[in-house]
């Protein structure tokens, strides 16, 4: 495997008495597209919140390109881009204004140009001057991706990126993720329930079950390991059964 970009060692998190992440060890290499799977409440978003510096873990460590997410927050935030689930931005401001502001906070020197280029790159320059408050879910998601990459991060975190999108929107998003990975060499970490998308986009997967990482391997190896299962959905169910 290539040099690890994301590394979790014995990662734990506890909300009061509830242990939501249990000693998670995980390593994701450069240029991979990683699909993080698991049932609702499995701990996927908590893990992503820790990796994006929004939450401090109660145990273990997590690093991005060797930088600790707790102690080296400044370096980590320079390296990552994040698309949260149900992304919203300032509704009274245009897409370009939102992007420019967020680019400035990421330390981009010419934020205005970066915003314009990003919108052009994603093929949504027509949305630049429109107020975000008037956008449909699909448009909002595209602007969400734009804000996540406006500073050209090394690692992209996507939390349920296809939720609420129509089939065309899902397809567009899939192509965007592949394009970002191919053109800009971004490593992608994606929380999702859409197993169909995972099989089309991801290079490796991990399955979280009640805070415990019960499976982690490349898609190819996974398909080889479970030759009798017809789809990734069947494999996911099987993995869950094996764990319990």
């Amino acid at each position: 495997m290539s040099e690890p970009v994301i590394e979790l060692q014995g990662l734990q998190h506890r909300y009061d008495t509830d242990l939501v992440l249990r000693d998670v060890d995980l390593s994701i290499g450069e240029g991979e597209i990683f699909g993080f799977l698991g049932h609702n409440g499995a701990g996927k978003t908590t893990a992503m919140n820790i990796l994006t510096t929004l939450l401090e873990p109660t145990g273990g460590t997590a690093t991005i390109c060797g930088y600790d997410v707790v102690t080296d927050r400044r370096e980590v935030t320079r390296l990552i881009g994040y698309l949260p689930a149900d992304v919203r931005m300032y509704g009274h401001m245009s897409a370009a204004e939102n992007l420019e502001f967020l680019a400035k906070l990421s330390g981009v020197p010419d934020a205005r140009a970066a915003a314009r280029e990003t919108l052009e790159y994603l093929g949504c320059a027509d949305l630049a001057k429109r107020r975000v408050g008037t956008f449909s879910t699909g448009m909002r998601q595209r602007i969400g991706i734009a804000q996540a990459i406006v500073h050209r991060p090394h690692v992209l975190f996507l939390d349920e990126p296809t939720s609420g999108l129509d089939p065309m929107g899902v397809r567009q998003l899939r192509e965007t993720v592949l394009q970002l990975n191919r053109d800009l060499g971004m490593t992608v970490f994606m929380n999702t329930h859409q197993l169909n998308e995972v099989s089309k986009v991801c290079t490796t997967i991990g399955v979280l079950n009640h805070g415990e990482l019960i499976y982690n391997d490349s898609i190819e190896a996974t398909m080889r390991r479970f030759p009798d299962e017809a789809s990734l959905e069947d494999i996911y169910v099987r993995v869950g059964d094996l764990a319990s």
Partner: protein
Amino acid sequence: MIGTIASQQSLLLRRQHVALVGLITMLAVTAIAGVLGWSSHHTIVRVFDQAVRLQAAAGQPAPPNPFLLKPNLSLLSNMVVYIPLIGALLALVVGHLSMVDDQSKGMGRLLFTRQVTRTQYALGKVLAATRFLALTLVGCGVVSIVALLAVNRTLGSSDLGRLTGFYVLSWAYLAVFVLVGILTALLTRRRSLALLSAIGVWLVITFVVPQFTSGLRPTQSLNPLTEPAGTSQAFFRVTQHAQPLSIVEQYKTAAGNILGTSPTSPTTETVLTIVPTLIAGFGLLVLVLWRIQRHDYARSASDE
């Protein structure tokens, strides 16, 4: 980063029309204070004329000219009431909106995965809100000058200095309420609870504390001329020691001294009355900076 956050927040205040509504309200209120001042002036002239005629008819000497009893800036005495009532509520709302909009949109997830620190973020928000209040008060100052020139015909440099002092004091007082609005937004999860808690604090400061320290009934707080009542009671002889903590009374006292509408006090005394407000502001700023470090910005958007 602080400047970027502050500029962004100022733009939002403009776009949400909060700034416009707030500015119009405060300018209208200042104009009302001016009209009331003019009306007061006019009424005194007419009552004085009538009194002179009445006394002359009764063969008595003319009464003393009441304008000798009325200081130049008394025209603005109503502003001393409007700032703690309307200005403070506006400041609360501005402080409140500065934080809750980001919270309810889940913006924290986008902001704090960037290089901005929470301290920079909070200071940017405070800067934007207090800058907005400063601009609003400058507008009020201009309206006040126009009103004073229209009624008194002249405005000396000393009066201009007093006016500036009054609006600087008012800015410091309102900054406290911006911080209350921000802090309650950081302490509570729901927008409504945050706003109502802030209003609760305002009610206590404006109406309840003055009754405790000076025996002022709630509606007495609305009249700029009312003297504190009930201080003869033994209870108030004890509680009036806590009067310095009643920032609304301290503000009114200091404002009255600066405008010259209440019996003159030495400058040091006036400065001392401002100290509790400054301490309150500083204390609240520290609390805001402490609280924001612990705030959960990983939460997603919500409709409430």
